[in-house]
């Protein structure tokens, strides 16, 4: 069973070739960002008509969070309902030009491999969008390799975006029963990692989907998690992951409480 990676120090285990590979991908993604990310933003804003509620306020708060956490690596943990959640989160937290200049504002992603592996252009897009594909329920060793990459990137001071639920929630709400412990494993291996819980949801999003409906306005909220750890090893990983998912669920609960009362 491939369950154990988190209890180890991964940074020292990743080979030079993989480190160089990550550096090349990192540099290329920043170079190509204006050609790839900005057209995507244009599509989301002007073709799909999406809006982020109170985006300036969110970005100002995120600037404060970046200042507060200085050079600490950021592990961004978000709920997951649509295929564009990563882009929406990146858009809501920082303007596009800042994502090019500051690596921490351009998080790495861990998408399901099968979504991007069937067409060459999807694979290329995935690579340039700082994605490290992972196969859900894949062969032993692969998830460990990806987590090693993640730990290396975080160790360099980059940020990584993870969906703890492992995929889009099939119940339309945060799935507190089915979530992975990868976030806990990563956090254990990097004591200075800062976990940021991000909750986002379209006002009319009833359940999971590929794309939200046109003209949707998204509510986005984030919170720096002060996680605690009582156990070691796998129990510790489970403990941290549970704190993350419970915080996301609390943010979701607050969202529905405030939005139902305002209607």
């Amino acid at each position, binding site marked *: 069973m*491939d369950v154990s990676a988190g209890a180890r120090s991964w940074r020292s285990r990743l080979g030079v070739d993989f480190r160089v590979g990550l550096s090349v991908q990192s540099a290329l993604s920043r170079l190509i960002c204006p050609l790839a990310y900005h057209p995507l933003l244009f599509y989301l804003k002007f073709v799909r008509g999406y809006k982020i509620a109170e985006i300036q306020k969110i970005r100002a708060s995120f600037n404060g969070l970046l200042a507060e956490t200085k050079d600490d690596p950021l592990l961004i943990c978000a709920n997951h309902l649509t295929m564009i959640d990563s882009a929406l989160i990146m858009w809501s937290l920082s303007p596009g030009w800042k994502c090019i200049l500051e690596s921490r504002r351009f998080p790495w992603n861990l998408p399901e491999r099968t979504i991007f592996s069937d067409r060459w252009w999807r694979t290329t897009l995935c690579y340039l969008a700082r994605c490290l594909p992972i196969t859900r329920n*894949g062969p032993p060793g692969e998830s460990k390799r990806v987590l090693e990459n993640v730990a290396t990137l975080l160790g360099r001071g980059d940020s990584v975006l993870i969906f703890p639920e492992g995929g889009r929630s099939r119940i339309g709400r945060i799935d507190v029963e089915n979530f992975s412990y990868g976030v806990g494993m990563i956090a254990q291996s990097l004591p200075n990692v800062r976990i940021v819980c991000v909750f986002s949801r379209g006002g009319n999003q009833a359940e999971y989907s590929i794309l939200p409906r046109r003209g949707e306005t998204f509510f986005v909220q984030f919170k720096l998690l002060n996680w605690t750890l009582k156990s070691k*090893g796998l129990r510790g990983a489970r403990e941290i992951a549970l704190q993350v998912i419970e915080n996301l669920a609390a943010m979701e609960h607050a969202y529905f409480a405030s939005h139902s009362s305002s209607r």
Partner: protein
Amino acid sequence: MTENEVFTRVVKIITPFAKNTAALGTANVSTRILEDLSVNSARLVDIILAFEDEFNIAIDDDAADRVRTLGDATHMIVSKATH
């Protein structure tokens, strides 16, 4: 504790995590936990921790990594419980 007894308890522990409940009926030592029983890989940590609690043993990372089948799990537990 015989291997048969351990095997029965292993199957009982894994049962709530198995999506392919039909395969549980014909489970044997060669049954693969992920592929045949359709256990979500994210739940493997829970299974390992449940083994530790049930059999009062400590399972290190490398031992956990080697478990693929119900037989692997049974042998590992028997080995650790008798040492």
